[in-house]
């Protein structure tokens, strides 16, 4: 596959420097060395390459993707990264790359992800999957289409659950919950009982994917996982982390309804918490990893 690369920062840009290096050994890679962005866009549009990797200012990017032929794909980079953005352009073939390319000193971001992303894009059916509106697993750390609002809300909820355990000296998971949260003695006091299963069901009900029966737990779980899948750009297969870990947690938690029917029965609730702890820990860890990889708007 032929590729063409342009960086409006010229040789000061990380994308351009990397492009110059790989173009030396790969005849399928062309580099545009034009300083004027408008002229560079014209060159990009005339090019025979199917794959365009560009660092352009907004109006030039819009001009490029509004005129880009359907069978081509353009990937937009930024020194500071992009927030999750749905495909853009007349043919929905313009994609924003989430991680930043440079650190604050103008050096390549560590780890330097461009080679991995590039080899993933040119291999297999990555481009056709992207065109279909899904993010292939191989590049899900680099490109996402949706803000992870549901994932974040779930993370906040699980964090709160851990904080309750961490603030309760007599709780069986007290020490490990404290360690996981890393809050030392700053755990906020909790002066009321929280029905965590009700909170989970509330959150799952609020997720954006509509389902037939919102009162059924298994349907609710499906709904929550559907939202996560959408935010993470994953295919319908729930077998992947973090979906699997979160699915396990939700199933285990909601199956404890009887054990938690009486919130004043501390012994029973503590036993249920202890049984749930490994799953909650795994799910939260997976969520944390995923959310750390997502670019936060506002660099």
């Amino acid at each position: 596959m032929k590729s063409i690369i342009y960086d409006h920062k010229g040789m000061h840009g990380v994308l351009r420097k990397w492009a110059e290096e790989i173009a030396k050994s790969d005849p399928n890679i062309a580099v545009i060395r034009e300083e004027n962005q408008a002229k560079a866009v014209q060159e990009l549009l005339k090019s025979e390459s199917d794959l365009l990797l560009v660092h352009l200012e907004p109006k030039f990017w819009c001009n490029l993707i509004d005129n880009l032929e359907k069978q081509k794909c353009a990937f937009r980079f930024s020194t500071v990264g992009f927030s999750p953005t749905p495909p853009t352009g007349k043919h929905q073939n313009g994609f924003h790359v989430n991680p930043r390319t440079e650190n604050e000193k103008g050096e390549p971001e560590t780890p330097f992800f461009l080679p991995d992303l590039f080899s993933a894009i040119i291999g297999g059916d990555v481009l056709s999957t992207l065109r279909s509106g899904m993010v292939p697993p191989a590049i899900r750390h680099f490109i996402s289409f949706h803000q992870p609002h549901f994932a974040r809300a779930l993370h906040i909820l699980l964090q709160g659950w851990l904080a309750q355990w961490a603030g309760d000296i007599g709780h069986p998971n007290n020490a490990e919950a404290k360690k996981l949260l890393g809050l030392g003695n700053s755990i906020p006091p909790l002066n009321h009982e929280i029905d965590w299963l009700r909170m989970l069901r509330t959150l799952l009900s609020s997720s954006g994917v509509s389902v037939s029966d919102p009162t059924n737990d298994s349907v609710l779980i499906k709904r929550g996982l559907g939202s996560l899948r959408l935010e993470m750009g994953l295919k319908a297969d729930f077998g992947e982390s973090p979906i699997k870990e979160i699915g396990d947690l939700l199933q285990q938690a909601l199956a404890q309804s009887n054990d938690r029917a009486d919130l004043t029965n501390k012994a029973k609730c503590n036993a249920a918490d202890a049984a749930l702890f490994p799953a909650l820990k795994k799910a939260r860890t997976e969520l944390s990893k995923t959310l750390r990889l997502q670019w936060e708007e506002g660099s």
Partner: protein
Amino acid sequence: MTLDWQRAKSDFNHAWLKNRLVVGLMKCLRVHSGQVEDRHAGDALARLIAEWREMRGAACSLLDFIEQRTAKPIPPSPHDVSMFGVDTAAFLLEVERQRWLSHSSVNDSASEARREIEDLDRALSTLSSALTSRGNTFQTLIEDCLDAGRRLAERFSRLTVPRDFIIG
């Protein structure tokens, strides 16, 4: 509010400080050293220095907001209250805020950022007075502004605020 703050930070730090001021100063350095020709580079720089007054206000507002967030718990949104109840929503947001406070060293960073705003202010003011004369120290003055601008951009890149809603 969190999302507004993030957008405002991006407008200031990415769109203006990194992509306009730092880039404009670098261009002036190249023009001054004769690497490139651009008759309008000086005027463009003068405009950027004039814009700094407004941008400085934007940067200070961003820091004011951080200080508000460090000072007291975040009130939950009406939607979160309707979903989770006021006490639970407040507790969840306070756990999130405490994690932000303990993991981001935000108080020190905000103070440093204020100092660096003053540094950039002084450097740009000195450069502004030298724009017409362009004496022997002109290059050094641009480099001082570049250093100060880059330090401030690096600082702002690391600044965050805690999420102030659960669902919305």
